[in-house]
């Protein structure tokens, strides 16, 4: 390590300490109350916002019949986010967090829309119109949201291409290395004790083994038996 490296490392530590002190001062300034941390009305994941419910109303379609079964409706509710401040869908929230006043109201809206003859996509669209996209448990597959769905696969594909390119780049070097070198030094324990009857490609089989390798294998087996 050079002196410059050492000074750089020391500076980094000093910056951290200064940052911590600064943040600590901010925190101290904010501590004006002398009460223990107060408990507030909460959901399973934070403060509850009971005022977030907005009615989703649509007139029933002419001669409307229920557009889906109860099971299908429950499935649909798994796709709608309860707006009470929790992270759950309305089916899960209303059947789990019995203190939540929001999910039963949202459920009632779904039931009304189902009875009014609205299909699943129409019901979801009605909820989005009132609450915005955040009412859906997953982002709709449109516009910028495609980035959410595609980025992992694009990243994976790019990684795959990179690996393939590296291998292609490596191969000529590897070919010469392989020709010049013997098998990897030291037979792994796994292949001396267990994988004896497999002959890994690229490594000489038992019949093709060099005398050194056979001696090493023999020694390993002898030791193992002892």
């Amino acid at each position, binding site marked *: 390590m050079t002196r410059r490296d050492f000074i750089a490392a020391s500076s980094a530590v000093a910056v951290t300490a200064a940052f911590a002190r600064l*943040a600590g001062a901010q925190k101290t300034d904010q501590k004006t109350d002398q009460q223990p941390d107060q408990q507030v009305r*909460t959901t399973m994941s934070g403060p509850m916002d009971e005022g977030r419910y907005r009615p989703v109303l649509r007139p029933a379609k002419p001669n409307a019949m229920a557009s889906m079964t109860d099971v299908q409706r429950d499935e649909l509710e798994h796709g709608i986010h309860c707006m009470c401040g929790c992270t759950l869908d309305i089916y899960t929230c209303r059947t789990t967090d019995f203190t939540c006043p929001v999910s039963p109201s949202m459920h009632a809206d779904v039931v009304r829309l189902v009875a009014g003859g609205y299909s699943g996509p129409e019901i979801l669209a009605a909820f989005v119109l009132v609450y915005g996209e955040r009412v859906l448990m997953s982002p709709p597959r449109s516009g910028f949201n495609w980035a959410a769905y595609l980025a992992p696969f694009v990243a994976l594909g790019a990684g795959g291409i990179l690996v393939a390119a590296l291998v292609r780049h490596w191969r000529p070097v590897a070919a010469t290395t392989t020709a010049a070198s013997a098998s990897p030094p030291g037979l792994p324990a796994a292949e001396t004790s267990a994988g004896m009857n497999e002959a890994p490609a690229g490594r000489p089989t038992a019949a093709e083994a060099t005398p050194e390798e056979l001696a090493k294998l023999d020694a390993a087996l002898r030791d193992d038996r002892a």
Partner: protein
Amino acid sequence: MILVGELSLWVALLVSGWACVVSFAGGALGRDDLVASGARAVYATWAFVVLASLGLWTALLTHDFSFRYVASFTSANLPRVYTLTAFWGGQAGSLLFWALILTSYSAIAVWTNRARNRVLMPYVAGTLAAITLFFLATLCLGANPYERLGWIPPDGNGMNPQLQNPGMAIHPPNLYLGYVATAVPFAFAIAALITRRLDAEWLAAVRRWSLVSWFFLTIGITLGMWWAYVELGWGGYWMWDPVENASLLPWLTGTAFLHSIMIQEKRGMLRKWNVVLVVSTFLLAILGTFITRSGVINSVHSFAQSRVGTWFAGLLALTLGVTVYLVATRLKDLKSTAQLESMASREAAFLYNNLLFVGIAFSVLWGTLFPILSEAVRGTKITVGAPFFNAVNVPLGLLLFALTGIGPLIAWRRASLPNLRRQFAVPVFGGVAVLAILLALGMREWHALVAYALAGFVGTTILQEFYKGIGARMRIHGEHAIAAGMRLIARNRRRYGGYIVHAGVVILFCAFAGRVFRHDYDETLRAGQSVSLTDPYGHRWRFVNSGVSVFDVLNRHVTAVSLKPTRDGKPMPLIESEKRQHFDTRGAPLFEPSTAVGILGSPSQDVYVVLTGVRGDDAAEVRITFNPLVWWVWAGGVLMAFGGLIVMWPQADRARARSGYHAVMQPEASIAGD
């Protein structure tokens, strides 16, 4: 004791600062006296943090409500075991718990390496001391558990009822033990980068620490799933919640590292990649803490939010900057000594495996942070919940699962077609046979079919490996099958311990696939009323409401419903579910009411009952869920942890020498010398 603890925290801060400065200085100047002083300071820091921890425990157990922390997270009537676990139930206490584990690990790492890795150790000690310094500074200046109130309240606020669960008593410590253990490999990586000693030496030193981290993270995540399942009452064990994701991220990159480390050990390849994985694992552990603490993302697990999130953001930025600088200036030293020869080789399979592990980690991180990105870019708030994560990660997870079976079947360096045919024949038959049987039985859910077919393939691969190994030992040594199996594992813990972990993965995937057969029913039952339901196996269940009872116990007011079930007419044990309202010593209610789930568990399925409400005096609203194969989630987690324990169990030098362990650990020099 409390005063001693309070003072010890500040002394520990100073001593860790000293440890950091003199360790780095000793390493840089080559001064053994400074290095020795740094090591002693590391031990001293640990001792002072232990005293600080004992002080806080004393304050908790004596109900000293003059401390904000004690008054905020406990009450006089809180059961003693939870008074003890309140140590990590709030922000400041959990940070002190981090510091306790970190200083303990630091002391162990310095002690066990006192005669080894002489060049690396000053920087390892310095890096660990720097991290400790950060935590102690955060504690002393940002979230001090010894902060006093200006008055003494008659009672405390009590503990969140969801934390009053045996799972929560042991889940966070395991998770912390896993998170914090990532700091040691990180410190070795930084030391190796600073000293430019980037051969297999530092890897040998960190492998066991990485396994320790993986082991505790595996247990912690499994316990977290179990806690969510029995405590939150929503009927599942994994909802892709940000805090759950935060614990999964370092596990994913840590698991990738445990695979890719073998490539560097055996072939001297992937040096840069291994450094990146070690550093990423530590950064993701810190990111997890940042997500939990900062409140930037809503989570069901965020019990301890505060502004120290900004501190962790600073640590993240600083660590990232330092690491990028070190890696960028040492690229030449990180060059591989061997090259990949074929896309059909064990090395390549490990590369694909790493690609998928990191790809899944990226997709989880991306999905977790995408709501923030969306709001920043479009100004639109969105929710990224389980449907998104399942859509993206299930295909990737199944690919990774397939690789779990493919990897062990491919030879090192280059696989030939006859070799592949011979190795794959039986496992492929196993997978196809499972698929055919399930199709014949009428299963049509394609996700489950793919998962079970792959389970057949991977399971057969594992059995084939054990069969060959045991057979070889029986032939060569004339041993009995059981003795041969035991010795096979004992002589080669890394390989066969790894297969046991893979067996746990097979069980987990089978259990996860059982999720698609889950059935939920919402029912309202008056006392004496019954309902008949059919489970996924076609059994007919009848549940009779035995009545709603109301009573007080310990620190809570309980409303309970009892359901008397029969299956195909055969009586089954009573299932009880409760609503609990906790209260303080004066009888005032604390927190919102919580749920105690009633579970009738068996390996085939859980019958999961949640009391969702009471109408009038005796009409209980219940959700009854048939949850197939959940029992196997816990079994799979335990088996994975057991396999991990075998892998990291120390191998005696004699046995190691016999099994060729040293030769495996030092291939780079030989290859380089070829």
